[in-house]
């Protein structure tokens, strides 16, 4: 069951120069939300930005009925979202998409840039099953990184930066933990990163799931704008994704 409700902005925090975090509080009990699901968030009814923005869910707190989002300011829509104040309201359609399953005994979660957001909630779900997952996060540099206390709590955390300013220097696909053995890989991040991970996984016969991004209008499978080409034809990223088994993806 999907919902369309107003949420209260209960917390807003800038994480670095381009990332900010919103905690949004529902007025009613949250439905069950899977890791990897997303919300469609309406920017502002006065704005010249027409459509909602799909944002993946970073964390869920059922006790306070809050969802957390990590948003990167990239375009007009997210720039305007960054101007919202605590106490204001935002309209959300949620929860959307299939989300990640928590398969595997020895999983590796790999995030890049703002794609790290859904992996926190996924790591937490693994922990709830008694599995502390390996998490590998990639950033361009230390300045692009955000505070990772939460990730440290729920995972064995590894970092790669392109300039080596923190963690291992290089791409995530060069990190030693990437080269170690895992039974399932979960990834969310820039397409070139996910594509490289997918190739590696396919070669090694490791199951691998990638959360894809796409320009979206409705978020609920009505408009057919956000299709991903797959071995089974065009699939809606919003309803048949955003999480795809990489063996089905035609990049």
């Amino acid at each position, binding site marked *: 069951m999907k919902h*369309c409700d107003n949420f209260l902005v209960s917390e807003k925090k800038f994480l670095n120069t381009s990332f900010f975090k919103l905690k949004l509080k529902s007025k009613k009990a949250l439905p069950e939300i899977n890791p990897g699901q997303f919300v469609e968030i309406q920017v502002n009814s006065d704005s010249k930005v*027409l*459509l909602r923005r799909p944002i993946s869910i970073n964390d869920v707190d059922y006790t306070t009925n809050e969802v957390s989002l990590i948003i990167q300011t990239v375009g007009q829509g997210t720039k305007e979202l960054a101007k919202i104040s605590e106490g204001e309201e935002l309209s959300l359609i949620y929860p959307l998409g299939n989300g990640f399953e928590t398969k595997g005994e020895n999983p590796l979660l790999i995030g890049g840039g703002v794609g790290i957001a859904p992996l926190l909630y996924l790591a937490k779900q693994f922990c709830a099953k008694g599995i502390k997952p390996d998490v590998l996060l990639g950033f361009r540099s230390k300045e692009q990184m955000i505070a990772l206390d939460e990730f440290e709590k729920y995972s064995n955390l590894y970092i790669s930066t392109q300039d080596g300013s923190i963690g291992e220097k290089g791409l995530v696909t060069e990190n030693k933990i990437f080269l170690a053995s895992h039974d399932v890989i979960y990834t969310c991040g820039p397409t070139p990163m996910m594509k490289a991970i997918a190739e590696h996984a396919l070669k090694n016969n490791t199951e691998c799931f990638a959360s894809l991004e796409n*320009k979206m209008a409705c978020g*609920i*499978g009505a408009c*057919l*704008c956000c299709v991903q080409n797959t071995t089974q034809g065009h699939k809606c990223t919003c309803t048949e994704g955003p999480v795809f088994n990489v063996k089905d993806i035609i990049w």
Partner: protein
Amino acid sequence: MEKLKIQIGNLEFQNPVMTASGTFGFGLEYEDFFDVQKLGAIIVKGTTGEKREGNPAPRMCETPMGMINAVGLQNKGVDYFCEHTYHEIKHYKTNVIVNVSGSSIEEYVKVAEKINELEHIPAIELNISCPNVKKGGMGFGTDPKMAFEVVDAVRKIYKKHLIVKLSPNVTSIAEIAKAVESAGADSVSMINTVLGMAIDAEKRKPLLSTITAGLSGPAIKPIGLRCVYQTYKAVKIPIIGLGGITNATDAIEYILAGASAIQIGTQNFVNPRIGLEVIEGMKEYLDRHNISHIWDIRGII
């Protein structure tokens, strides 16, 4: 809600608010948000003779108060519709109308014939104005002679209410409307999307795989209103107006310009409950202005 009840040709509508083809799936996608049977009609996704994969990604981009889409009639084909989807939606206690698309007169006829057999589909909307397919589509809707031919052919085999959806990308939409009226259309709906284009200046690439594609949303409301106004003066058959409707006020504007009913398109993506809100808002408008029926203000501009 007697104030909103209308009849177009032989077809009754509990209210004049419909959802536009391609923006509301098959109705099913919106069931979580409101009782879609409260709509005057649900116009389901464009259906063609065979399954189509549609255009490659990217298919969508935003423009100032608008969006451009290049979906290109992705659908599972008329047989799949008749055998599967139809059975999921035939119980709806409102008009379910199928948008019929094609690349040739034969394809339009074939699809219309099959839909004609479906008991719970009381009307089709013949889409002769889709800008996103290479063959046919908008071609039929931009030339009065071709428009006449395709409508004439479908009219011969389609026995129920025949709506023809027209393109604004013409010198005179009233001319096209007159042609389809004379070919036997029961009503016209307008406007389909406006042919537009968007470019990523930084990457120096088009933002859509088809380069040009269909612009919709509030940006085009002035164009839709003008088309309805021009057509209302030119034809006798009813007009179903659409293009950039975001609230009941916009809907009333279309009625004032000459529309007998309206469709909501892009706004379904922004506010999934908009259909219901427009119905309630139109009722409130009529009450507030002491107007006893919505058609009392039709075309009075």
